[in-house]
């Protein structure tokens, strides 16, 4: 079981120090849409300070798993616990970042407005923004190098900046677990490198990142652990151990990616 080094464990803003308690436990999770089983038998343990690549062919249930982890889908069976208690009690610690293609980029909102949405769990319907909230929003903008762009409408950003704006929203939420759907998709090489560097900073500060990913070539450089799924769980573990050609073949064999690119 991978554990993070306690010295590196900052847990920025979440107000907790003990990394051994910061565990996401997924046990025998299955999800179905109406009658169709979309995911079955997913079980893994993850502690904060790690980044996990969620890998599998199209239709393997990557987005479904992320949504289930975010509490957006009802579980058919199995359990999800974060820090020892049911997920529903700590929803503000879990941030969900949708695929860029699912977002309405023309929505009349600025980068800052988007990041401020992250304060909702603390503010509720009516409480007004305090200086404390503004500071957290500004820190999140600065961490994602968006301070100069904060007044831009969100469609006036590059792909990498858009992804960072969504991460900044998660930071403003003081989220501990970030669930990202295809964060690298559509980014050019430099933007990917930059995002990968930010991922490493986020995990070094004690966050848990779980991201679906489809470029098998970059898994090794970008993530610590890998979770291979194809409706069922194929493999889970550190990239060097779990992301082997045999496992990849198991996940992708017989699909459109008949000959997947091995890392």
């Amino acid at each position, binding site marked *: 079981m991978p554990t993070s080094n306690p010295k590196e464990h900052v847990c920025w803003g979440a107000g907790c120090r003990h990394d051994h308690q910061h565990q996401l436990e997924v046990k025998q999770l299955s999800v179905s849409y109406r009658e169709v089983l979309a995911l079955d038998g997913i079980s893994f343990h993850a502690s904060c300070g790690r980044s996990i690549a969620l890998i599998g062919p199209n239709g393997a249930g990557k987005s479904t798993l992320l*949504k289930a982890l*975010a*509490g*957006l889908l009802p579980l058919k069976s199995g359990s999800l616990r974060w820090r020892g208690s049911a997920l529903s009690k700590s*929803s*503000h610690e*879990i*941030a*969900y*970042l*949708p695929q860029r293609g*699912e*977002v*309405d980029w023309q*929505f*009349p*909102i*600025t980068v800052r*407005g*988007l990041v401020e*949405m*992250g304060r*909702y*769990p603390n*503010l509720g*319907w*009516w409480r007004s923004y305090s200086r404390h909230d503004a500071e957290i929003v500004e820190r999140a903008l600065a961490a994602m190098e968006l301070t100069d762009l904060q007044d831009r*409408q969100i469609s006036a950003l590059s792909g990498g900046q858009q992804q960072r704006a969504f991460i900044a*929203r998660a930071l403003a*939420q003081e989220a501990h677990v970030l669930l990202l759907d295809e964060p690298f998709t559509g980014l050019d090489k430099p933007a990917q490198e930059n995002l990968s560097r930010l991922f490493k900073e986020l995990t070094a500060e004690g966050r848990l990142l779980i991201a679906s990913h489809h470029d098998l070539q970059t898994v090794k450089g970008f993530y610590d652990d890998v979770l291979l799924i194809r409706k069922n769980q194929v493999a889970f573990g550190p990239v060097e151990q779990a992301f082997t050609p045999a496992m990849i073949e198991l996940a992708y064999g017989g699909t459109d990616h008949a000959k997947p690119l091995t890392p």
Partner: protein
Amino acid sequence: MSVFMITNDLPSLSDFLAEPIARRALLACLMIGFANGFVSAFVVLRKSALKIGTLSHALLPGIALAVLLVGLTQWSALAGAVFAALLVGLGSIFLSRTSRLDQDTSMGILYTTAFAGGYLILTQLNVRQKLDEWLFGSIVGMADSDLWIAFAISAVAVLGLTALQRPLLIYLFEPNIAASLGVPVRFLNYATFAITILVLISSLQAVGCILSVGLMVAPAATVYLLTNNARALFWGGGIIGGLGSVAAFFLSYPLGWSVSSTIILVLGGLFLLAYIFSPRYGLVSRLF
């Protein structure tokens, strides 16, 4: 209300405004225009303009049925409208879940069938004039009680949407993010549906079911072309809807035009101006 039928020998505007019926109409234009403009922000951000068109047509048979059963009063019309909206709204969800059709298709069938049935009921009843009012609006013929209902509806809509604004904007932006942040998505759905139906009824009274979509879309669509601030859509939409309707009232009188059509024309004209001249998103600034 027969003032508008007379085309020659029109009393002067100030004489006309001395009449209670004209002052009521003016007040109704301001209130209903503002409330509809305010709610149009929600309609535009939700991208549900076509659904509003569907709903507005679906209300007619409900009203017809209520008239048939208990006679025409404000409350029977209101109850009938709510009933019809629920029936078509929920019915389309039920149809799409229990068949292979999607919800838009189901709604398309349900509301046209309901509208046709409602129209036939109304033509069979001896309420020819009332029928025209529900089809094309009757803002000039409003009684005091109509005005009070319009006021109550406007107040509920503006206060309700203002209270819900923060979670609502997150939900409208991205429902999944909203749900993951703990926004009560289902409650918002019901609450905004109720507000939409209420406001639709007031807009039905003002401009009728055929033109009501214009009143519930155009104001915020105009502001949408001017700002990047979603909150401004609500108040800006309200102001454009209210002032546009009042301007249309004054414009329609000397021209002898129908008020409801003039309201929609004025709002359409304002939208066109924003489309062409908006400093940020207008045609002119994008081309030159």
